[in-house]
């Protein structure tokens, strides 16, 4: 209902880490001066691999409405095959942004007047030393590059804190590589 919030909807598969990615961005944005931050997961009875999503709302003021995002400014997709299964960009604002982990070229994507950002996060994350399929730190790098809402350094620091004891260096490296290799397109 309020128009001055930034709403970012994260779509992934159960077990892929979309909620962790959104939480890291929430923490980094809060540390960067956004007073109002709410990361609201929508829960089904998840199985691994089933489509899941979470809503991240960010504002300069406290967030009072914790309902799922209906009109997101940004949609982040951790697995490009989800685009074939569900209406992932439903409600996306005109002139919004879609960020996709995909091995396909950015010119293959069009979302009716939206900007698109693509990186092969799956491949880049393996190059960073992470096991196959770990994409939730890498996609944060693409988010930093495409959205431009928060400094990469702030995100890298939060990634290292969050993944303490769980390959912090490789996770930060994945975000750095994805930041450098995100291709912008669309509109």
């Amino acid at each position, binding site marked *: 209902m*309020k128009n001055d919030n930034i709403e970012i909807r994260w779509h992934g598969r159960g077990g892929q880490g979309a909620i962790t990615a959104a939480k890291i961005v929430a923490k980094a944005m809060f540390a960067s001066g956004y007073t109002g931050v*709410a990361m609201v997961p929508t829960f089904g009875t998840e199985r691994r691999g089933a489509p899941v999503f979470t809503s991240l709302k960010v504002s300069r003021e406290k967030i009072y409405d914790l309902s799922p995002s209906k009109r997101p400014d940004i949609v982040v997709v951790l697995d490009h095959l989800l685009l074939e299964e569900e209406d992932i960009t439903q409600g996306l604002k005109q002139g919004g942004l879609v960020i996709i982990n995909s091995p396909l070229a950015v010119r293959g994507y069009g979302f009716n007047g939206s900007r698109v950002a693509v990186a092969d996060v799956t491949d880049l994350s393996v190059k960073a030393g992470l096991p196959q399929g770990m994409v939730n730190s890498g996609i944060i790098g693409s988010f930093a590059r495409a959205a431009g809402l928060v400094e990469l350094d702030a995100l890298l620091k939060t990634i290292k804190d969050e993944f303490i004891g769980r390959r912090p260096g490789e996770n930060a490296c994945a975000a750095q590589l994805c930041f450098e290799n995100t291709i912008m397109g669309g509109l």
Partner: protein
Amino acid sequence: MQIIETGNVAAALGVKLARAQVIAAYPITPQTPLTEKLSEFIESGEMQAEYIPVESEHSALAICIAAASAGARSFTATSSNGLLYMHEQIQWAAGARLPLVMCVANRGVGAPWTIWNDHQDSISQRDTGWIQIYANDHQQIIDSVLKAFCLAEEIMIPVMVCYDGYILSHTHMPFDVPDSEIADAFLPPYRPPYALDPADPANLNTVTMPDGRPDVRGDISPGYMEIRHLLQHDMVEAIPALKRVEERFRSMFGRGHDPYVEPYRCDDADYIAVSLGSLSYQLHDVADALRAEGVRAGVLSVHLYRPFPDRIIAEALNRCSGVIVFEKALSYGYQGPLCSDIKSALYRYAQGKPFVTNYILGLGGREITTQDLYEALKVSCSPDGGAGEETRWIGLKIPAGGTQT
């Protein structure tokens, strides 16, 4: 210190700050991460407490009752059918006047099974003699847990701190973690007025005759009815007691809020939406949208549900022309329990007698869209908006006996 965490973690941090000594709990969605976090605190040595894993919620509360009877500060938490399984012990804890604190991550009840949010679980425990506080956000969860121990131990009545399952329990939001030294000064160690002692055996809460009778020393002991009358008397006294707790909290931590109700744009409101929990905050944006259209709408969030601060609520609603109660619970065959309570308060105290309309919504996690709230409140913000006594349902896809629309 400001952190971003879930509502369940906020609750666990509150229990840790309160230095609870005994925790007995059985995991149930969406409460589970709260008890997991407490067991982690205890395992790592961050928290000095006895964590007692149990095979059921009935046993969890039975252990807390025993621990509190022996003088230990005790805590449990549950949701939904787990809370219902405690029901017998819930009544016992209140009758025994034990200062327990329990968190309820609100969830609908079966059948059919649901794991998602509504308020039917804790509302169905309304008449058990427990104090019930509803939190709207993570700050209120962590602060309420601390205040709850303080209140419970002052008046020897157990307290339930209720917060919305998933919507608060699993949402990450910023909140301030109170300083532990100030928390220790706010809530000193529990000194029970009486505690079980193997060296001095005693029977507690044995069969109590309808009439009072002389005890072994010849003093007249109260009968069951006097004991229960005292519980009612002290429950009503909990209303001013909570204010004292709140004032002390505010003076020590520099923040706080009205412990009974939280009004939003109510001063000049013609129409006031009333609800419990996080839904109240979702209604803030709806009231703002209606105000922008020239409709004088406000929101009254009820924090203290039992004891019911009826005079305070009636005074808050007295000057408006319509009250619209949004509820995630139902007294089947009648209406929402909060709606009935509000009508009763207005009958006793209000001169103006505003109309009262009741919306039922969000049962079993049915999504509550802000647009739906806006449309419902807009319809009800009119002089004839209160027409009809039937409950109105928001978000129904198939009407009773009907086909899909």
